[in-house]
């Protein structure tokens, strides 16, 4: 589905990721884990095609990113940006409908299917009652859920999410993550996301990619990679793992006073 070949990412002279050879198969759910500034968002933006790679290349379905026509690519992958700024008073339903843009090349208006899909996406994020609201009046968490709904309405096999749980309350963090996991399992969608909650990531991911921020990286199946010693090294903080039923809970050790 998604692959990188010898991908290199740099900010200025600093190398964030070096020689990343990475394969993401259909139906897999990947979490990208690393410290602040380790290049997680830079990698995500590169995968989304919003910035050029500093070396190597990104392939989607075996075809280099640069060889995809933009509109076709927009039917293959959707991207949730980390933050949004709303300058105009669009309604919630309008922002979700605009995610249907890649599906009608030349028609001036959306059709009733687009409206149906947009409403379904809103309902699955539990924000269908907000459809007529001005997006600028929403709370942070509501806005985030509307943004995820727009992503769902884009209806692509590959979903790239930069901190999807941002600003969400506990219940919605769990329900959004659960929904993403379900999309992978039941509809064979591929999810790549960034998150800071290790326990939540462990609960739904099948794989994980760890970034050190100095070029080093580690990719693999969840249970091979998400182990206390490895995570402690990559996150620069000692981490303990507790088993709770069939779940793993990750706890940062308290700083010594």
């Amino acid at each position, binding site marked *: 589905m998604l692959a990188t070949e010898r991908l290199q990412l740099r900010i200025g002279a600093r190398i964030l990721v070096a020689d990343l050879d990475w394969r993401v198969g259909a139906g897999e759910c990947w979490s990208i884990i690393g410290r602040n500034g380790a290049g997680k968002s830079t990698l995500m933006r590169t995968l989304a095609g*919003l910035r050029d790679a500093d070396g190597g290349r990104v392939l989607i379905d075996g075809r280099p990113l640069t060889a995809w026509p933009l509109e076709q690519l927009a*039917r293959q992958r959707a991207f949730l940006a980390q933050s*949004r700024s709303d300058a105009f008073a*669009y309604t919630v339903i309008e922002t979700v409908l605009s995610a249907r843009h890649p599906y009608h090349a030349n028609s001036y208006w959306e059709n009733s299917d*687009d409206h149906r899909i947009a409403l379904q996406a809103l309902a699955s994020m539990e924000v269908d009652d907000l459809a007529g609201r001005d997006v600028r009046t929403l709370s942070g968490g509501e806005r985030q859920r509307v943004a995820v709904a727009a992503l769902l309405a884009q209806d692509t096999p590959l979903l790239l999410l930069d901190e999807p749980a941002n600003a969400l309350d506990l219940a919605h963090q769990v329900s959004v993550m659960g929904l993403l996991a379900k999309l992978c399992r039941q509809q064979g969608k591929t999810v790549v996301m960034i998150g800071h909650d290790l326990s939540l990531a462990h609960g739904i991911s099948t794989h994980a990619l760890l970034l050190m921020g100095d070029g080093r990286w580690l990719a693999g199946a969840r249970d091979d990679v998400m182990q206390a010693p490895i995570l402690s090294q990559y996150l620069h903080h000692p981490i303990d793992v507790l088993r709770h039923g069939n779940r793993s809970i990750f706890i940062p050790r308290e700083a010594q006073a």
Partner: protein
Amino acid sequence: MHPTSANLRARAGIITGGLLLACVGSVLFAGMTGSVSIPLADIPGALDELLHHRADSLAATLLDLRATRALTAFVTGAALSLAGVMMQALLRNPLADPYVLGISAGSAVGALAAMVAACAAWAVDAAAFAGAVAISMLLYLLARRDLKSGSAAEGGTALLLLTGVILSSAGSALVTLMLSIASENQLRGMVFWLIGDLSGAPLRALPWVVLASGLLFALRSARAMNVLAQHAEAAATLGINVGVLRKGLFFISGLLTASAVTTAGSIGFVGLIVPHACRFAFGPDHRVLIPAATLAGGAYLVLTDTLARTIIAPQQLPVGVITALIGTPVFLYQLHRLRK
């Protein structure tokens, strides 16, 4: 609970149709109103005479003069308003106007330089247009990076905006310089040009061509403009070539502004107030906003110009005075209602 697609289409049709009627009404009103008013009953006869190229009656002569001026006002107002909508989408800022990037300052420098050199009227127009084109090119060269979309900052138009504002102030400085060295008898014409005045503005075909092509471009990009206005840079992930769209908006809105300013001087506030009011009334969807703001801008300038030439008749005011006097309080009112 919310409109379906068929309803949206019908709504757009009603809004556009209603505004189209308002436009015809405003031109008709402008034709009837003046020092000698023409009763509505005489209009068809006078129109008939005009269409057969013989203006024998007083009504026909007056209608010819007034309708010419009203049509010039319409094309100017429509172009300014459309340019305003495009500039606001480009900068992702509802408070931008067509002049914010210094295009009017550029054409003012050109026009005033030609006036100082005592050139003929056509040369003043040509110089105004050249000034607008020159400043657009300069701005493009300086802020090319922003328009190519790849900038890191969210939205990424700070460079373009700041460069435009600085070029605009440089233009104002040159304008002040020329005003201070101009002779007394040139000053009045120069000040009227700066305020924006439609008296003696000829009815030309070119502004209509520019308006028509600008409108065509805008309508074709309306959906993409919605996505750009909402998602800024991330618009690219929805299949929009952000760089091409931004460049298109920049050059077409620049061309519309240059054409309007060349016709009538820098009339202020139309490009800010009319799109704002239309957004307020009809929502921010560009598919409705573009035709609505274009028509409303035209009608608005026709009506304000009629007011400008009748309010203290026989003396005529430059229309820019009226648009500013009406524009300021209307804008403040909208702003405060919005923020409440």
